[in-house]
């Protein structure tokens, strides 16, 4: 796992592989960790956490976490909580679609412009929460 300090917020997507929602969750995460808040936010492998990897479990227990789930099954949120992590905000991609009626976001393999717009909107919401949690401004 990448080294990060205690103030870092962990952004953990579900990365569901079956539908576009999982890809949006993943790309929104990278927009936060690589572009909007690279100093304040990092991501972590969800599967590694679910596997019970000691380092991954310790990380979610010692950092604030934001989860981004593609579907209502909320695998990311549930598994972070099961591991003893504190989820300060749980975002659902399906909710973002409610304000994008008729959008054609792409597929589980690639996003269209609509898909990227939704991913960026989610990322900005998450980055705002990261700023709130860390007290440090993020890029906009």
């Amino acid at each position, binding site marked *: 796992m990448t080294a990060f300090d205690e103030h870092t917020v962990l952004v953990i997507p*579900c990365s569901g*592989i*079956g539908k576009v929602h999982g890809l949006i969750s993943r790309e929104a995460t990278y927009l936060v960790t690589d572009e909007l808040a690279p100093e304040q936010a990092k991501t972590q492998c969800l*599967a590694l956490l*679910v*596997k019970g990897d000691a380092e991954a479990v310790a990380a979610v227990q010692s950092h604030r976490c934001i989860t981004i789930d593609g579907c209502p099954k909320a*695998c990311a949120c549930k598994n972070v909580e099961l591991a003893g992590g504190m989820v300060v905000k749980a975002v659902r991609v399906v909710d973002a679609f409610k304000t994008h009626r008729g959008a054609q976001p792409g597929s589980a393999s690639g996003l269209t412009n609509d898909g990227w717009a939704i991913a960026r909107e989610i990322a900005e919401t998450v980055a705002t929460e990261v700023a709130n949690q860390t007290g440090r401004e993020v890029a906009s």
Partner: protein
Amino acid sequence: MSDTVQKVGIISCSGEEIPEGTISRLATRRVLELLRPDATVTLCLPLFLAGNEAERDFARTHPTITVDGCAKQCAKWGTEQHSGPVSAALVVTDILGEPCTACHRSSRDRGQADKEAVWAVAERIAAEVDMVLAQSMPAGMAATATDGASCACSSPLPGGTITVNGATVTIAGLPLIFEQCAEQGVPADAYGRQALLDVVKIYHSIPSDEESAYREAILAAYQQFRREL
């Protein structure tokens, strides 16, 4: 194992932290959508690990291939923990023979190295699917899935259409085939005509007496594709 033809489950690690996780995921999608759409399904690893019984039951009763980004092999571990031994366990770094230092996590940054890595891993997965099916099927049975097991994740990509001798023909994954050809520099003119046909023939059966008509139709569709790039 039943004596009906099986579908093979492919479980990719999510691997959010590393480029190899993205390669694993995209290669799995490519097999599902283009290389072996009728013979494969995928399972959502976090959902599988979280205890979804339908997904675990599928992995118990069907051959399963895991594709992991790194040596921690979360997908393999999780599958064997909950559903029993896997038919094959692939690791991206083993397939590529080296760390993916030139690859990226986000598709926004995707470059040639990412595309080549995805193709290499996808082709290896497809080869493993063929081997698993060959081992699990009665001799002589065609490798088409017919047992009805499926999930929403496995729907093949809509095909592209071309017009051959006045008839509309759908070719599965045609846009992806064209994308690959464009990446490889296949020209959209008479020089690229045969190369295009050869690639399409891998995925779509073309009667020999219709090859000439297909050659022209595919070229016309490819030219249109390149114009829209």
